């Protein structure tokens, strides 16, 4: 059995080949791959952004609900976990199917929204779990103090739990960002939405037999997209810490 990775040209094209491939047209006479990949990434970014935003918001609300009601935590947490174990293939048709029947006001449902939904579906989870931990993190004295002020749940949340949970928020958001990228890519693949980097990965991977470097260009694109999102989250964290450190 093979334990060490192969390193032949087909399995691991030379970095140089991949870089060179970026500069060449994807098909004879077409745009250079770099441009195609960039365009696809931008397309996917929209699904990622919407999915990330919606997912983070949903995760936050769930975390707050679980923190608030022990019963909800007991009752909900298993479902939150469960939700993540449902393979996307079982969901993609349902999401695409439901979506097709919806419209946002007069704005009809677009295929990329199904993709964003899948991205949100993966993104909410780390936020829910991480923020639950964060919201539960304040020391007992602090909780008792707020209790002694008869501070209701809302005020305790606002003045104590949320500020105390910022150290947990950003790792969670980073995971959510990555999850949103994965979700968007998977979503594009499974729902057959064209135009994004996920679709490109699968399209190029069909050509890996004879042109192995090509599929790597799409994968590098996907990775760069992930990095870009991670960098955005990192920048937000940096900005916030900066403001608080003064």
């Amino acid at each position, binding site marked *: 059995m093979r334990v060490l990775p192969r390193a032949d040209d087909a399995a691991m094209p030379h970095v140089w080949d991949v870089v060179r491939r970026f500069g060449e047209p994807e098909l004879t006479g077409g745009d250079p791959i770099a441009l195609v990949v960039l365009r696809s990434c931008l397309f996917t970014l929209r699904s990622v952004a919407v999915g990330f935003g919606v997912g983070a918001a949903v995760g936050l609300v769930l975390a707050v609900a679980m923190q608030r009601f022990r019963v909800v935590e007991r009752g909900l947490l298993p479902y939150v976990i469960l939700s993540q174990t449902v393979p996307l293939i079982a969901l993609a048709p349902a999401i695409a199917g439901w979506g097709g029947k919806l419209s946002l006001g007069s704005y009809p449902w677009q295929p990329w929204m199904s993709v964003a939904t899948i991205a949100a579906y993966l993104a909410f989870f780390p936020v829910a779990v991480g923020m639950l931990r964060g919201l539960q993190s304040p*020391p007992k*004295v*602090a909780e*008792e*103090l707020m*209790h*002694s*002020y*008869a*501070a209701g749940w809302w*005020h305790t949340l606002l*003045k*104590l739990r949320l*500020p*105390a949970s*910022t150290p947990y928020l950003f790792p969670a958001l980073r995971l959510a960002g990555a999850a949103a990228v994965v979700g968007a890519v998977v979503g594009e693949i499974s729902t057959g939405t064209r135009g994004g980097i996920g679709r490109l990965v699968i399209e190029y991977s069909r050509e890996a037999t004879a042109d192995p470097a090509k599929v790597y260009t799409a994968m590098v694109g996907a990775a760069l997209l992930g990095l870009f999102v991670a960098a955005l989250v990192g920048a937000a964290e940096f900005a916030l810490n900066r403001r*608080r450190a003064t």
Partner: protein
Amino acid sequence: MTAAVELTGVGKVFNPGRPDQVAALTGVDLTVESGQFVSLIGPSGCGKSTLLRLVADLVPPTGGTVTVAGKPARKARLDQEYGIAFQQAGLFDWRTVQRNVELPLELRGASRTERRERAREMLDLVGLGDFAKHYPPQLSGGMQQRVAIARALAVHPPLLLMDEPFGALDEMTRERLQDELLRICARTGTSTIFVTHSIPEAVYLSDRVVVMSPRPGRITDVIEIDLGERTEATRQSAGFFAGITKVRRALRAPSEVPA
């Protein structure tokens, strides 16, 4: 007039039925009249903090009833009938000193300017006016404790619960704050339960000193103090020393029948 605090047959067992079960308090009866200053004194681990927490409705008693301002403890807490300072300062690291003191005012919906003024006033009172913009981790232990005191006093509550608030302070600061505390309580008619390890402090401050003994925690003596108005001279007065001696004796040889 209703008593500020009334405990009847109160008991507290931690972790009941587990190997690390601890009977922290048993059969505690205690009344604090309105405007009275009562100190709790007793060896470490005898249940003073627990008693305070019961009054504050932060832990539920396993037996007996706790009444605060004529209401059940829970209702009193919800009505914000008391202010509390814990043994640990319990400051919020992400708020400046000033904003830590403002917190309870914020929760009572005080206006911004009012909050700011009151916080400054309290910080000046505890001698930390210069540190308003610092964050808690930049303060010395005693300074943190003083911020916590300022925070408890800021709202002028009808009942003050204080757990060794001056424990980390030097004698001068301590004596100054004792006088300030008495002044504030007298002026506003505040009732106070005050946990301390210092016998002179208990005697100087209190109308009554409650002496406790451990395992299980219970009240062994209640010593009435009557020193009249506290002045410069009080700390040198015979009555003061007599009080100290009484309390010391009660601590050394707990009477078998609780008072």
